[in-house]
């Protein structure tokens, strides 16, 4: 059953703080809340469709994508998230969030939200023993490298035509991408104090 689409904020007054929803089914929710608040925006935990009224942007956090994909449908969140995307609200997916956003998943797995024209491969580097940290060049957010933490991380294995690559790994595979107002990273910007990707997300909100 399709849930009614939540109303987006109506042309906010310029001084109103943006309201950023964070999908809070499980995962690194707290860390995204801290990042959003540090930038002066309001953080809203999203667990049910009723939590989504009046949001300006949405973050899909790191965690276990297998768990989140089940809970998204269990709580009827899929349709309200898609409605938000249709209305042009910017979205950021980190790690598990990137998997949830992808149009296609490797190994014939069923995709979830289909908001990013890319094929994403889960656990592309291997199990936890292969988790790593690295400094990343991301020109879209400035010259200073961003320190990326990759945990059982995915990569983008195939890109659609409208998708811009923001960063690549050592093997030249995309690990940060943008398509329209959808941003996705294979790593966890929420785990370090670097707020530049969150700022990029907030900058895409219509004001």
């Amino acid at each position, binding site marked *: 059953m399709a849930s009614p689409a939540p109303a987006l904020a109506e042309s906010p007054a310029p001084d109103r703080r943006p309201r950023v929803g964070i999908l*809070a*089914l*499980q*995962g*690194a*929710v*707290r*860390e995204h809340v801290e990042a959003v608040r540090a930038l002066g925006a309001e953080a809203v935990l999203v*667990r049910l469709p009723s939590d989504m009224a009046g949001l300006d942007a949405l973050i899909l956090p*790191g*965690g*276990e994508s*297998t*768990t989140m994909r*089940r*809970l998204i449908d*269990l709580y009827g969140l899929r349709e309200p998230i898609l409605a938000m995307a249709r209305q042009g609200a910017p979205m950021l997916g980190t*790690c*598990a969030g990137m998997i949830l956003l992808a149009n296609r998943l490797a190994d014939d797995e069923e995709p979830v939200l289909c908001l990013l024209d890319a094929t994403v491969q*889960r*656990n592309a580097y*291997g*199990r*936890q*023993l*292969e*988790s*790593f*940290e*690295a*400094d*990343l*060049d991301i020109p879209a957010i400035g010259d200073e490298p961003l320190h990326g*933490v*990759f*945990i*059982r991380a995915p990569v983008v294995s195939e890109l659609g035509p409208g998708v811009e690559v923001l960063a690549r*790994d*050592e093997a030249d595979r995309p690990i940060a991408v943008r398509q329209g107002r959808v941003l996705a990273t294979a790593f*966890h910007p929420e*785990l370090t104090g670097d707020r530049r990707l969150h700022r990029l997300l907030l900058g895409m909100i219509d004001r």
Partner: protein
Amino acid sequence: MTTQTSTWATKVGLARMLSGGVIMDVVTADHARIAEEAGAVAVMALERVPSDIRKFGGVARMSDPKLIEEIKEAVTIPVMAKCRIGHIAEAQILQALSVDFIDESEVLTPADEEHHIDKHRFAVPFVCGCRDLGEALRRIGEGAAMIRTKGEAGTGNIVEAVRHMRAVQKGIRELQGMREDELYAAAKELRAPLAVVQETAELGELPVPNFSAGGVATPADASLMRQLGAQAVFVGSGIFKSENPDRVARAIVKATTHYDNPDILAEVSAGLGEPMHGLELGEIPVEERLAVRGW
């Protein structure tokens, strides 16, 4: 791009990714699939759940690597496994099997009654149990990337889990109320490294995620532990020793996410069938309690 694997940030990072979730004990690949399907964030691969370990008696050891491999094959969520306290070789074997987390666990028979494993020497992250703040901080000092309060495993009785979680939280509040120069004596009393004590006082919480284990048998138990400060819950015998494991597993997952929403808790608690039988703590002789293992 220079990369560094198995750093402290990646170890604690995985623990953070499991926050808000349920980690379920499983003894077969089929159990593991049921757990994953129900929404578990990770599974703990075991030969026997704690209540059976209790019944079976004898020495409880690391699981057969064959079983762990089967469970790894069956699911895509992280797989954890237990080694005995102080059993460096069992931990090395689990690391060689590429499990995602090792639980140095009091549920198994201790191999060393003085020393825990030096967990900094391992690439795989560790979780350890605690009954109070001092025990938690000693384990973090040894390199544990996640803490879980012990509770009393295999009882289906939440009372010890509550006692341990309250003890940890109270200990943290006491540290927060201290002057900086009082933290030296606090570290001495807690028998924990000063640096970890200072970090905890400053953060107002443990420097690594704090989960709850040992005694969760119902959705309400999971909600209770979350409300007392657990960031996630481990469920052992409570699921696969209940009348309807699949339904109980799903209900506990929902209760963990919506722990502060009594309407949803009421809904998921209804009609679950018989929970695991459960044990009153008074029925367990002190020498048979698992939580007192570890030092």
